[in-house]
């Protein structure tokens, strides 16, 4: 009888310790998860900022002035354009 009780006590103690470690690990994981979520949010905000930055650099007036001044490009006159028949991909964003 006493032996059985001792075994049960041991089991109870082990289980209690198990609960403690499991809880500890769970908390560690939650902390990790929170950090990752925060990172995701930060990256999302950074992405928004980069997008606005990109659109600022890609503004049509800027592209035009760079094309005209630095690259010395010009709009072809009507007669310099040759239209090609066939499957034409229209300008669109990926």
């Amino acid at each position, binding site marked *: 009888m006493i032996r059985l009780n001792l075994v049960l006590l041991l089991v109870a103690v082990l289980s209690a310790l198990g609960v403690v470690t499991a809880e500890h690990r*769970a*908390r560690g994981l*939650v*902390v990790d998860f*929170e950090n990752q979520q925060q990172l995701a*949010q930060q990256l*999302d*905000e950074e992405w*928004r*900022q980069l*997008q*606005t930055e990109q*659109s*600022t650099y*890609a*503004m*049509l*007036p800027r592209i035009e002035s760079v094309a005209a001044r*630095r*690259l*010395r490009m010009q*709009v072809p*006159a*009507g*007669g*310099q*354009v040759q*239209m090609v028949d066939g499957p*034409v991909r*229209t*300008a*669109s*964003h990926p």
Partner: protein
Amino acid sequence: MSPDRNPHLSLKLPVWRTRFVLVCLLTGFGAMGVRAMYLQGMDHEGLQAEGAKRYARVLEMPANRGMITDRHGEPLAVSTPVDTVAVTLGRGEISADQRAELATMLGLPRKDLDGKLAPGRRGVVFLKRQMPPEQAQRVLALDVPGLFLQREHRRYYPAGDVLSHVLGMTDVEERGTEGIERELDDRLAGRPGSRRVIKDLKGRVVEDLEHVRAPQQGQDIALSIDLKLQYLAYRELRQAVATHKAKAGSVVVLDAQSGEILALANVPTYNPNNRSRYDPGRARNRALVDLFEPGSTLKPFTIAAALESGRYTPDTVIATAGGALPMGRHVIRDVHAAGDLTVAQVLQKSSNVGTARMALSLPPRDLWAVLSSSGFGAVPNAGFPGEAGGRLRDPKTWKPIEQATMSYGHGISVSLMQLARAYSIFCTDGELLPVTLLKRAEAVEGTPVLQPKTARAMRDMLQLVTQPGGTAPKAQVAGYRVAGKTGTAHKLVNGAYAPDKYASSFVGLAPASAPRLIVAVLIDEPSAGQHYGGQVAAPVASAVLSGALRVLSVPPDLPVPRTPIPEVLDPVGEEV
């Protein structure tokens, strides 16, 4: 020692006193035991809640306001993070040095800062709202006692003043106050959620207890606007308004097949990123909100009504009586007097007399029916707050002189958007398209207004306007057929037509063989000498069309003289 040995000690207490104390003590213990059992076993939830209060926190889960993009996904309005700097007072002495540094970093006068941090005050004071996060971090690094940052968001508009009238603005709380931001606030706005968590000593979240409310992120919205065309339209308009010293101007570019608004620009404009210099007069979306008397740009609708009656064809000859038609006390005059004109020539030369004579031969209701079903006198429903519907009077009240003047666009008020939209009946085979500021996923059905035959005849006649002998050769675009109509109207000032104030307009469509675009231009009060729609507004339409057709790679419908392409181009200079 027994009591009988020493009588002094033989103190005999009454039995009831010992019993009474004993009972009291036992009852006390008993009560405590019961209470302990009750707290442990029965009422443990209340206690746990008390415990949780000491380490559980409710956290707000932020929701971002949705992004507004153009039809290709270019961002037009984006929420960017900013920090608000605040101080909880009474957390410690803020030294004079720190105050001085704070004042310079926040850009506040020292006196204001001292006032906010005055010793008598308590609670939380906001020192500066909406600082860029990098700057705010430097302020935080000063280690001022009680200072903390609060994360907020503000709208940033990459296109600045180019598209401000359409997008509108939000207030400091990120609620839409104008334009699309206001119209679609419900869809754009996110709803923040909240959740309960357990935090440990270091302030880290260690357990998620429950989600009180899930956050709802704002929707992203794609407008029908094409940013490239918008820049183009804005640039040409601004230039024209400056050259002609005009008071204001507007351009509307519509997709002639879907009714989507591809560009909508107004001058004067404002920069929505700079809230402090906001002026309601500049913020008005004139193309949608302001009404004007269109003048001759309305003539095609009178002529279409005449063709629909079956009594006229484009070749019917009309006597314009040398450019003057007396009507009671008034005389209707033409700018270029002529003798007999065909219906097509009436339109090409924009003869008021010819148009009025056609209008007078029709029952008022027929003319009204074409104008009304073309969308005049009704709000165009483009999806913008405060759109104007204009004024088209009941035909029962028309007097002949009114019917005559209305035929060439006086005594009727329209918005530029209405005018642009109405021209869609000449692009499709007589159907009026619904307009929208939002990107359309599928094709739309128009409402039939004219017979296809009439619409095609009108399209052919409108091409004459941009050819030699018409009022708007300046609307031509190399390689494309352009159809259109000019308008020059005296402005009404205090109920009378001002002799020197004009509203010059032009509405064009191209390529005329299969229209893809409608461009409507209004220049308000040009005052640099020229004022005819063909001189002032038509060149803007031509420039916008030529750029837009190229950007959209629309194949030309006119042969263009081929100039030899040079074999060798100048080498491009190296970038330094």
